[in-house]
């Protein structure tokens, strides 16, 4: 080990600064709280810089930073929120109390407002929401997502499949497009 520890902050920030929006956006989707998202991003950057020496040059820096944030989120930030009501009970979603009737366009139309999509995404458990964002928003490959979440690639596939299925159910219910397919309040939706 070298006794001389170089100031690598500039080198680090050159790689890390362009990822900050993506990281913060994801942190917001995960925590749904601005203050917590800020803390999570800040802690992730400081931790990443601390371990910057372990980053293998030439590998995917963005995925590396996401992995650090994901670990932190599951290890520490989940602890913080334990005991709080994280997810709106599914019954509320299914009974339509969350879907603001004024915000809807014609029920028959499939156009969805951004707020509705956001709300639907919020209803997903974190284990589904995160792979979906990593895949669809940030366009990470399955392998990269598996590395970020530190799980087998099969788990990534299954979570994405189930996440989309659940999204579809929630969105359909919000739009009230198909009465026959809309589960009644209290019905358990298999996933």
């Amino acid at each position, binding site marked *: *080990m070298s006794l001389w520890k170089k100031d690598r*902050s500039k080198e680090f920030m050159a790689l890390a600064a362009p990822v900050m929006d993506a990281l913060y956006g994801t942190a917001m989707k995960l925590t749904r709280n601005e203050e917590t998202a800020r803390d999570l991003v800040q802690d992730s950057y400081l931790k990443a810089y601390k371990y910057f020496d372990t980053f293998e040059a030439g590998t995917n820096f963005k995925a590396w930073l996401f992995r650090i944030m994901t670990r932190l989120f599951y290890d520490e930030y989940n602890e913080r929120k334990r005991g709080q009501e994280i997810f709106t009970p599914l019954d509320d979603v299914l009974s339509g109390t969350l879907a603001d009737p004024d915000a809807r366009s014609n029920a028959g139309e499939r156009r969805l407002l951004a707020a509705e999509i956001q709300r639907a995404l919020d209803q997903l458990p974190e284990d589904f929401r995160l792979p979906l964002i990593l895949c669809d*928003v940030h366009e990470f490959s399955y392998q990269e997502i598996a590395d970020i979440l530190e799980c087998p690639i099969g788990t990534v596939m299954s979570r994405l499949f189930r996440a989309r299925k659940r999204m*579809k159910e929630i969105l359909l219910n919000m739009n009230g497009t198909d009465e026959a397919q809309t589960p009644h309040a209290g019905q358990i939706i298999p996933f």
Partner: protein
Amino acid sequence: MDCRETEKLLTLYIDGEISKADARELEGHVKQCRRCTALFEEAIEIKDLVRRIPMEKAPADLRRQIELQIAASGRRSQAFGVLRWSAAAAVLALAVYGGYAWFFPRTVVKPAPMAGPQPQMAAVETTAPSMASDVHPVSAVSNRMEKFSGSTLSRLRKRTLPPTVLENLIVEHVRPLPPEIQTPDTDSVARWYASKSGFYAPPPQLASWGGRMEGGRMSRFQDREAVQLFYNVNGKRVTVFMFRADMIEDIVKIDSIEQLEKTSEEEYVNATPGGRMVALFSHSGIGYSVITDADADVMRQTVRAIVSQTF
């Protein structure tokens, strides 16, 4: 390809994770199946909706704050590096001087008396620094350095873990990743990690004095594979890392209880400023690092439990 297979592969298809041959088959089926066409369109639509979901951008003040913190952290680490260099250089200089002074006794030149019958020339007296009562101040330092020569210096070198290694161990102890196996049964844990890593050494048995095994995970130590074990002793965590002893060149070997009793704790235990203790030693070819924020007795008992194991 039938509807069932199509449904299974649809997610992979829209994510571009499917082989070309499978993609062709899937497209062929979708074209002739109304149900699968509907599923396909829905899947694309949902992906597209998520893709277009508005993502919040990092606030400018957060960006600035992080930039400042990283820059400050960079300066600190550099200063720390310089400090370490300076400390190393100072120790080296003193050691060299100490060695020199020891092997080449210093010639002390006493000023000649101002008056008297003595000849007008300086009195020359040769003396070893450790015995001289009027030695030069630097000789006094070298006198102290003498205590740190030989075996003591090599002991110090062994017991001091590099700060980054120490820091990593503490982080893994304080904020470990979730265990991959969770059971109080040490045999199950042993079987589990043997299958993963090829370590056949049993895990430390701490139950006789109140240490409860909580589980373990595969981890890294100095960038090599290691087993990380979690114990709970009266509500305090004890983390034990097991790894190949030959990973660390000058690791303190403690292969028996007799050897443990002859070895000073200072040789293998590091205390951290945060009040934690980190032990590093090898036993029967397995390297162990024990980290605890419990008291020194817990550390002693854990080390003893490890060393008393024969395998």
